[in-house]
């Protein structure tokens, strides 16, 4: 089992994600430099948070043209597991692996704080260890996290059960006050139709150790490990 963490110029949660996978989850992991194109040795790919290419022009807009992204798209299309966290989510949208876009936050300010998200779907490789409706406390840290898409796409996402996480209050109620950035339908994370590509704005890697105030993010990595294990067994 091998995880790959892509390093774009300007990625800054690459080390954090690497740390959690190697030290907390205890799985083999390597960095993937964005100019690499052979990623065949990996079983799951994570696009970490940060400010790839300074988020200049538009978040994720330049990173999607990095050589590694062609391989990531192919990897995903062949059923490989891909998770984009924060800037990684933005890049997945730009690359067309996920629909919609992340706009500037509703109040125009960067927001860094712990939020609650509700697990809406447990039949994804990223949430299968969760229980439906489970509330996770994870930090967000972004200036552009306001999920937007057209009405038809939104209807598809909802109809096909692809909204995986929603911002909510501590009791699990989806309210406007609990929405930190103005996302449509309080969307915090979505997956593709095949359910092997996930994008989410909150940072599970920042909430995976007891010392760091919350370890709720660990369950997402644990799900991923179980999923990769199953895939390897059936391969």
């Amino acid at each position, binding site marked *: 089992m091998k995880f790959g963490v892509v390093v774009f110029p300007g990625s800054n949660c690459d080390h954090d994600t690497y740390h959690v996978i190697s030290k907390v989850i205890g799985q083999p992991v390597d960095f993937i430099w964005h100019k690499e194109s052979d990623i065949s040795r990996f079983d799951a790919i994570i696009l970490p948070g*940060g400010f790839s290419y300074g988020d200049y022009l538009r978040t994720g807009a330049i990173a999607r043209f990095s050589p590694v992204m062609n391989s990531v798209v192919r990897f995903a299309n062949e059923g490989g597991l891909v998770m984009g966290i924060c800037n990684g989510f933005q890049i997945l949208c730009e690359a067309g692996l996920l629909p919609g876009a992340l706009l500037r936050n509703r109040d125009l300010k960067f927001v860094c704080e712990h939020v609650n998200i509700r697990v809406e779907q447990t039949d994804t490789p990223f949430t299968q260890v969760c229980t439906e409706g489970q509330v996770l406390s994870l930090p967000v840290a972004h200036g552009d996290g306001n999920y937007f898409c057209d009405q038809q796409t939104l209807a598809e996402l909802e109809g096909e059960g692809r909204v995986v996480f929603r911002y909510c209050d501590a009791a699990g109620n989806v309210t406007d006050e609990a929405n930190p950035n103005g996302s449509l339908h309080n969307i915090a994370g979505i997956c593709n139709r095949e359910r092997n590509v996930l994008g989410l704005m909150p940072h599970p890697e920042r909430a995976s150790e007891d010392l760091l105030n919350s370890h709720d993010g660990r369950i997402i990595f644990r799900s991923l490990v179980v999923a990769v294990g199953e895939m390897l067994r059936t391969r």
Partner: protein
Amino acid sequence: MITPEILEQHNVTAEEYEQIKQLLGREPNLTELGIFSVMWSEHCSYKSSKVHLKRLPVEGDCLVQGPGENAGIVDIGDGWCVAFKIESHNHPSFIEPYQGAATGIGGILRDIFTMGARPVAAMDSLRFGPVRDADVDEGNEQTSASTIARNRRIMAGVVKGLGDYGNAFGVPTVGGEVYFADCYSLNPLVNAFALGIVRREQIFYGKAEGVGNAVIYVGSKTGRDGIHGATMASAEFDEAAMEKRPTVQVGDPFSEKLLLEACLEAMRSGAIIGIQDMGAAGLTCSSCEMGARAGTGVEINLDLVPQREPNMTAYEMMLSESQERMLLVARPGHENQVFDIFRKWDLDVATIGKVIAEPRLRAWHKGELVADIPNMALTDEAPKYHRPMAAAAVNPPEDVTPKVAAALRAIAAQAGSEQLMNELLMRLVAAPNIASKQWVYRQYDHMVRTNTVVLPGSDAAVLRVKETRRSLAMSLDGNGRYCAVNPREGAKLAVAEAARNVICSGARPLAITNCLNFASPERPEVMKAFSDVIDGISEACRAFNTPVTGGNVSFYNETEGRGIYPTPVIGMLGIIEDARHVTTQWFRDAGDVILLLGESKADLGASELLVAVTGEVAGDAPPLDLQAELAVQRVCLEAIQAGLIRSAHDCSDGGLAVALAESCFSHYRHNAVGARIELPVALRPQSVDEIVGSAALLFGESPSRIVVSVKPENVERVREIAQRAGAACAVIGEVGGSELRIAIGGETHINCSVAELEAAWRGSLPSHLDRQDLLAAD
């Protein structure tokens, strides 16, 4: 030909010009004059402060690198060291708040990673003019409606600038402080602190060693931005300040992030001998300082410098303060390795010169020698001034008691005497200096790098160090009001509070960095205050055994003749040996017993209460007994290390009642909780009448006090520790309920719902800052 007009434009005096001619043995050309003017500017040369800074204690067991390098370094054990420093970016942040603040954090981050350390934390100490409508007074230019609107825009721009840069770079901004006072209108203070981790054997220095070695330029291209930035920061402002906007640099955090990764990679590869960032005075400062430190010289060819714009002159290139650039000396034979690494990160890299034996800075441009100056003339032999000092008119400090008494009676007449203390507490928790700073720190990524153990809002920030079992605590503290009335005591109090904050988080104080913000050194009373502050810091640092590892002086913080308070800001670093000792300020469980360590006196001078009820800063700073302070700190730390303490919070602005309220408020993973406090009459200062005495006990700012909570079964053990240390320790109440109730001698003075208090505390800054008129143009 250098004319008096040219000298004036360069802020060089006639005497200084004579000295330049003497050092060169000839007249300088214009480029050389430019070089002298920046290197001899107050900002770069410390010419007014140097003779005083010598008195700071700079020795200690943990010290690896003291003042004089890009950052100070201390040993934290297991072969790991911490590099940390604070620097001001006040002037640029006034002229252009967003870029001024952004390049402030950018500069201090480079100071850290140029030493080989990866930055893992930042903090900011910020001071602005008033931002409340309630402060508008058209009779005073510092508080006119338009000034207050501008203060809000400055604050919003500074916070966004700091956030955008630090967030994109990927360093968590984990703490700091924000204060407001009239004197910071048009003179905002932006002091940025950064801290990094480095293996002891991998520390790099800014030395140009090895004659013949290649001098390599890396990072962004050189442009015309920031020319004379250091000179601008060395003069007071007048009405034309806005015309100085082109002297402010533009920051690019993305380039800085690439520069960080490339520099650390190159350092690890062994291809680098010495390295220094190009900050103030850019290419000039880095080349002459690297030569001066190694006893060598640096010769550069400006034709080879990567340039952003065509037709730049030698003068412009030598003085440009374009950001995100470094100068390094490569190990012979490893030049190509350096090139490969920086190209991998898409950065410019060019060999622009070599190390020479003559201790001189030499620059060529288009085949001409455009500068040839002895390094020492720019560094050690720069002017040092013993500027005249005179104490401000010496009046015995005013006794503020009658004023406070009159104000309290007036409020009591309005609110009802039984409501008086409730009313005061409500006012104080909403006062901008005390109110929640969440509006600010929510805009900073304070968790990236996943080391932030204590989230912003407690006494000190706490970071785990993944490489060791230890954690670091850090705090930034200053109190301009105290220094305004008593510079020496104010400086001592700032060091004491910083140490106390670090202690409250469970750490042993190790060392400090400082940022000294003052008005014009050409005014004798400012210089006297500066000298007193140095003495105060020295005395306190000796007592706490925390050496000064470096810092920064910022003079000329005045606009149109109105200067700031003397404002020393102390950055204290502490170490926590065991993660189980990490302590926060928030009360935990109902039934826990609340104790007050330390003694309360009638200390209302220069207090938040005094400002809140009279609008004045007057009286004397609270006296600090360093031995009593040390005793209280020892008790707190010993009790924490014995596992007896559930929460610890120091009493500072707003005194005991505010400290108690803050301990009741909610925080991530902490629900709000009430407290029932019964203060014995004996604690009430007897030197004043009852109403003032009660107010002093509740809101007075006697230093050396800490509110702790403990489980009932541990009360006796904490008392024993206090008794042994000779520190006062009183049981004052217990945690529980949803109200904060405080009685003195059985008589209830405060009975407030914690939810209401917290709403006022939390809502204050957003109500003043989240407004449409902020978006209006200047």
